[in-house]
């Protein structure tokens, strides 16, 4: 109907609907990793973010992630954020190539907001999980070149009044997890800790402590995962998502919980002696 005059207006057959990625594609602005395909071996030391974990409790979900980013054997960044609010009722945690992962989170956050404004309602939790799945799938060519991004998505499903948790694989495969999930290089250690401890963790507080313990152990055994850094005052990020929405825990609170974990472990060591 109307010509394009820097206000993006489309004919009905060309309209991208409430999708921001489609809109950006139409305008030629979307993120592109096409150049990667021609770069040869692809053996660059790309900055990587590492361990993120998430687990459900009765009233919602807890997400946590360490702060370390590595390039090869070097620590490239000590304060990376890997757990983000996706919107008021959901959060996303990322592991993998840091640059594309942060771009993916940004695009995901903007897409949820864009949809909400255009349509007047927000997407269902499952709709959000599927949107992220499409973004991971679209990223597959770059993942094949070594820039793998594997997010975790969690949120509070207001229609069903419960927390839900989704894991992904590099192809965009989406798996709803019943209890807990971890992603990234330290995920094996973290998952073991959660698996062993989850029976005794029922309340939100217990689950927060369990995830903190899981991250501590991941950092203990995986060089790419950062532990609590009391010297610089850098601690993993922990957030809860419940009927009250996405809430990030205070740094002092997290620091105190890490001290408890360390005190407990120190006690164990003394008992052995």
């Amino acid at each position, binding site marked *: 109907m109307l010509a394009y005059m820097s206000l*993006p207006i489309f004919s009905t057959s060309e309209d991208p609907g409430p999708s921001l990625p489609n809109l950006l594609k139409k305008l030629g*602005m979307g993120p592109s990793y096409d150049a990667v395909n021609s770069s040869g071996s692809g053996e660059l030391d790309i900055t990587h973010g590492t361990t993120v974990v998430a687990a459900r409790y009765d009233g919602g979900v807890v997400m946590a992630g360490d702060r370390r980013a590595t390039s090869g054997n070097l620590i490239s960044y000590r304060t990376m954020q890997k757990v983000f609010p996706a919107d008021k009722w959901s959060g996303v945690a990322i592991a993998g190539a840091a640059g594309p992962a942060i771009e993916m989170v940004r695009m995901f956050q*903007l897409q949820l907001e*864009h949809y909400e404004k*255009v349509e*007047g309602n927000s997407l269902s939790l499952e709709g959000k999980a599927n949107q992220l799945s499409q973004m991971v799938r679209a990223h597959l060519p770059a993942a094949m070149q070594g820039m793998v991004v594997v997010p975790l998505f969690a949120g509070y499903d207001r229609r069903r009044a419960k927390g839900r948790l989704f894991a992904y694989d590099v192809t965009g495969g989406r798996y709803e997890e019943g209890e807990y999930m971890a992603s990234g290089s330290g995920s094996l250690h973290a998952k073991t800790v959660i698996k062993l401890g989850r029976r005794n963790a029922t309340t939100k507080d217990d689950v927060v402590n369990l995830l903190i313990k899981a991250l501590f152990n991941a950092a203990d055994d995986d060089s790419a995962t950062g532990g609590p850094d009391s010297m610089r005052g850098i601690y993993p990020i922990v957030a809860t998502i419940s009927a009250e929405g996405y809430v990030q825990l205070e740094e002092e609170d997290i620091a105190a919980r890490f001290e408890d974990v360390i005190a407990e472990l120190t006690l164990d060591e003394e008992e052995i002696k």
Partner: protein
Amino acid sequence: MNMPFYVPPEQVMKDRADYAQKGIARGRSLVAAEFSEGIVLCAENPSRNLRKISEIYDRIGFAGVGRYNEYDQLRIAGIRHADTKGYNYSRDDVDSQTLANQYAQMLGQIFTHEMKPLEVEILVAEVGFIADNDRLFHIRYDGSVTDEDDFVALGGDAEAILERLGTNSMKSANLQECIKTLVAALAGPDRELPPEQLEVAVIDRLDDGRCFRRIENGEIATLLG
């Protein structure tokens, strides 16, 4: 081949303006005002689903009167403009002035070049970090823009509403006082507007994040007392 009749351009423009004004006058009106904590937008709208007022960006709201499909298309274009700009630059770089200019360009272009002008009047409102930086841009069907201070009325009854509001600024009023005044001006002396007939939204002067929020029926009823 028949030669088309000569029609003077004055006549063409007048006919188009009359056509657009008639279309706009068929719909119900809308008012917006700056108050102590931000900007209130208040429309007479019996529908819960076909909205006149909407969020564009963090500090920017949109309101339209006239033909729903036309202002809704402008609303979505505005959201797309703001979201792509924020994505390409930063959230701080999205401003109401650019958006108002874009709308004006577009409405002006359509008014002079298309078969039919758009039968809409729109408002772009932005809440500043300080009250002095609040903006109310009123854009008409022909692309003319006015930068209003204090308050603005859109639609067929705009003149009558502005007369009822007089010259009293609501800049120091609280939300309740402001909404009461606006609803009274919207209704006029001969009738009362119940909450179900109203669509109200506020752009709060917050420090950051999304400042737009709708005020639902229950809350409107409480505020109107």
